[in-house]
């Protein structure tokens, strides 16, 4: 009897080591690039590829300040936050309205419209950039914040509708019935019952779209000419010359741009875990 208990304990400990070892190995590989990025930001152009130390002997903290000023980050930073907030809000509102309609309301052509949205998710269109530019030109929206925001909202609709529809479908009907009895119209049910319950799915949509908008670059370059309208990624480009890339400043700049997204993820991940669940377990 004693022997088997001992074996059980050893197996337990070995199991613990094995599990955590694997997790720690993978974690290290995930953290390593960020550490490298951060330490490169503290080096100089001449030492960034020759100095292999993890933390340089003479850290150049001023690189962060230089990256911020040379990259003109002040304006770009606020622009990026503005775009992210507006696009995410737009996607959440518009997609949830449509998803609620697909999930709970009846109207002709419902399925056709839904598959139409789904198709855009699955059919990528490289080369649409000229068409989009011409279109915005006709609408007089080139070089405006509004044009840039509208196109990005549109880009996030398909996935948002898909995720939110499956979530709404799983909502318990008795809550809706209760609200209807209380005298709520369609919109009231949507606003007061469906949306609050869908917080997890909304969190998913938020993080997906926030990351996309935050990292967006090509569209901004195409549509915007005014420097005061440009997002953060534009600032990073200043360090990537046609021939000379200023690596330490670039790494410092990237570190600065990564921080807010990591922050947002930490805040949202509580909701995400619960959110993807409900949307996924129906398929």
């Amino acid at each position, binding site marked *: 009897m004693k022997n088997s208990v001992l074996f059980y304990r050893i197996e337990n400990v070995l199991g613990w080591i094995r599990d955590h070892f694997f997790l720690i190995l993978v974690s290290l590989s995930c953290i390593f690039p960020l550490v490298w990025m951060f330490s490169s930001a503290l080096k100089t152009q001449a030492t960034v590829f020759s100095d292999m130390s993890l933390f340089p002997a003479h850290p150049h903290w001023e690189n962060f300040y230089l990256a911020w000023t040379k990259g003109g980050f002040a304006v770009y930073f606020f622009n990026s936050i503005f775009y992210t907030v507006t696009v995410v809000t737009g996607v959440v509102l518009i997609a949830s309205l449509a998803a609620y309609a697909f999930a709970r309301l009846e109207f002709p052509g419902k399925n056709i419209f839904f598959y139409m949205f789904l198709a855009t998710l699955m059919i990528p269109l490289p080369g649409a950039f*000229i068409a989009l530019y011409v279109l915005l030109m006709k609408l007089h929206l080139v070089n405006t914040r509004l044009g840039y925001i509208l196109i990005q909202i549109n880009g996030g609709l398909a996935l948002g509708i898909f995720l939110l529809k499956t979530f709404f479908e799983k909502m318990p009907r008795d809550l809706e019935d209760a609200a209807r009895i209380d005298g709520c119209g369609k919109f009231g049910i949507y606003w007061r019952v469906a949306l609050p319950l869908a917080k997890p799915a909304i969190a998913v949509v938020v993080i997906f779209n926030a990351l996309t908008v935050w990292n967006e670059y090509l569209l901004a370059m195409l549509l915007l000419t005014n420097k005061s309208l440009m997002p953060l990624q534009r600032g990073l480009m200043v360090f990537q010359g046609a021939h000379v890339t200023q690596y330490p400043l670039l790494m410092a700049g990237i570190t600065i741009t990564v921080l807010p997204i990591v922050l947002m993820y930490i805040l949202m991940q509580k909701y995400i875990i619960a959110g*993807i669940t409900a949307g*996924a377990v129906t*398929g």
Partner: protein
Amino acid sequence: MVAKTKLKEIFGNYLFLLPALAMFLTFSIYPFFKVFQLSVYQWDGIMPTMKFVGFSHFKDILFHNPIWWQSVWHGAYITLLALTFQNCLAFILALLVDRGIKGGKIYRVIFYLPPILSGIVVGLIWNWIYNGDYGLLNYALKYLGLENIQKAWLAEPRTALTSVAIAHMWQGFGWGFIILLAGLQNIPRELYEAARVDGANKWQVLTRVTVPLMIPVFVLVSILTILGCMQIYALIVATTGGGPGYHTEVPVTRIISSMLGQSQFGYACAMGIIFGLLLLTASMIQIRISRRIKQE
């Protein structure tokens, strides 16, 4: 009277859909049709005139462009690797974290870091790891005494594509991990208790309880993986540029090279349409398979 209220109700329902539909019709439909239109013309993207060529682009791509199909195969290869290894890894990690392991919250954040990283950083890191003369991988191999395996990983025909695939999987597993973890956490613990009471061991619990309940999640992850892998582009440009030769060309690199490099805009649009149809078919098949499994 009844008809009128019915009409009013339908109209009210449409209002929910209106904003999304309006945006969609303006910003998605127009480019969509433009791409379709351009695919039957020969155009360099600059001249105001185009030449109508009918379906000759499509014919050329389907029958006379072996490089295009090679690139599709390369994309499929990366996708297959991701569907198996990447998602297996993600699943294992999700299982480990799901068991309430200490520091689960920290792991959740850490595993999501690679997807957040910008393409530039990912490209630089992996270029360094794979570098032939002084890369980390070769250094580690030398340390382990495996010098004879050392190569220029990104430059040799046989290893280039797999090397890029590994870099892509490293960046992608974070998404799969999160989705799978969420799916696992949604399984009621009572089912595990019941199974254990019935005398099932760990393996049986896994195969008889966990996996069947996770099938819809697997399907979602698969579809997202396929879409993500087939559209790989920035990583290829940052590491191999499609080389050596054509060994790491993927559909998007071929499309961009036609569009900007060879000034064949119409041809590139035709490629884009064929590509889209391929992806659509793949996703539809996935959905149909999942429906069939659900029915069983």
